[in-house]
């Protein structure tokens, strides 16, 4: 049964990552309504219970920036260069739509779970 348990654990991990993927995008966009650089963004997400590793966050930030949802700027702070990100004007309505969608999905799920 070890293999079965192992594959169940892998299966859960894959499903968990899939579930998190979309939520992380919404969370990152929402957090970046206030300008932040990568490390503080990671810390604030982790403080709110949504830890994300650097290998996932930075490629995601680049992708969102290339899609025009974020803007970034290199600035010196505490004698070190840091890249600051914030939600772009194009990203604001998208974030609103995503939040509406998320709330709708959440409400549906709750109804489904109550019925079960």
């Amino acid at each position, binding site marked *: 049964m070890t293999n079965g348990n192992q594959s169940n654990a892998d299966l859960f991990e894959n499903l968990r990552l899939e579930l998190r993927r979309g939520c992380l995008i919404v969370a990152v966009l929402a957090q970046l309504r206030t300008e932040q650089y990568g*490390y503080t963004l990671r810390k604030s997400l982790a403080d709110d219970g949504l830890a994300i*590793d*650097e290998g996932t966050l930075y490629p995601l930030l680049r992708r969102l920036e290339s899609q025009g949802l974020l803007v970034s700027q*290199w600035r010196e702070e505490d004698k*070190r260069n840091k*890249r600051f990100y914030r939600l772009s004007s194009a990203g604001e309505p998208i974030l609103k739509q995503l939040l509406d969608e998320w709330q709708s999905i959440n409400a549906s799920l709750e109804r489904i779970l109550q019925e079960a």
Partner: protein
Amino acid sequence: MSTPSNNLPSGKPQELLQRYLQAVRFWLPKSQQEDILAELSEDLRSQVEDKETELGRPLDDAELGAILKKCGNPMRVASRYQPGQYLIGPTWFPVYRFVLKLVLLWILIPVFVVIVGPAIVLSNPDRGAGLLQTFGNLWTAEIIAGGVITLVFATLERVHVKCDVAEKWDPRSLPPLAKEQIQSGTKTICEIAFGVLALIWLLLVPQYPVLAFGPAAAFLKFGPLWHQFYIPIILLSLFGLAHQIISLARPQWNWLPPLGRLLSIVLTLIVLNFVIDAAGRTPHNEWHPFVALVDRVQDSARYGQIAALVNVSILLSIAGTWLGLSIAAVIETWKLLRLVRKRIPQGHNAAPFRAA
């Protein structure tokens, strides 16, 4: 966006961090190397500083190593910055896999087993060497075919050829529901009846050559190859009858007709190979392998020409039959493989949807 300055750390304790960033750099897209490394380096430095503040002392190599280990393998970290790339994308991949399977498994292997293999083995005095040569050639053919198919699909992917098949389809043009293939009893009875008649004909022909030659039996008789291969032909005929009788008795064994047909074809091909081979070895000056002249017209030039013509016609017919049976062998192999695939339970597949 201004160009970032180098955030790379310096100093002995940070050497490990520099080595890590150097390893990440190797796998990064060139155009973004500096930008990505500056950002990643800044994050790692911030993590180190936080940890040092927490401990109240500089980190040693092991503690720094733990942070880097958590960050991940350099190649993996870098790979996340690469755009999603694939040789053959999800649109083309099912078609690619189907073509690859069709060519490598269902065409090349049967062709080599049924046609190329016997031809090489029978033409080679050393049968073992012939077999090895067949495997070598099959392997080479598989690699080349696989490579060419992959190249073609990779090119289609590269030039962004749209797979219209996925979009232009009409539900009404879908194939009808597959029915369970159970051979009809009437068809099998007819096949048995013809098989019995053919067997009787074969058994009577040596005594009554007129059944084969008609009026020409007055000057033609069977050649030496007929005597050599008479018994194998009778056995083949019996084998065909046996599998048809069993198919009639056990119609639920739906694997038997295709398997029996395939075996019958393969055995016939083997016999035909030997016949062609033996015909080729017959001396040219007395080349009457299938049909010869009866003794009393041995010296007739006219009948000699007719006999030669009949022999050549038979040889050509055998060659044609060999080709036809080879194609039939491929088709029967394909049918049998489909049947086997259907019978093997697919463990991870979901239960088929059934309408209520």
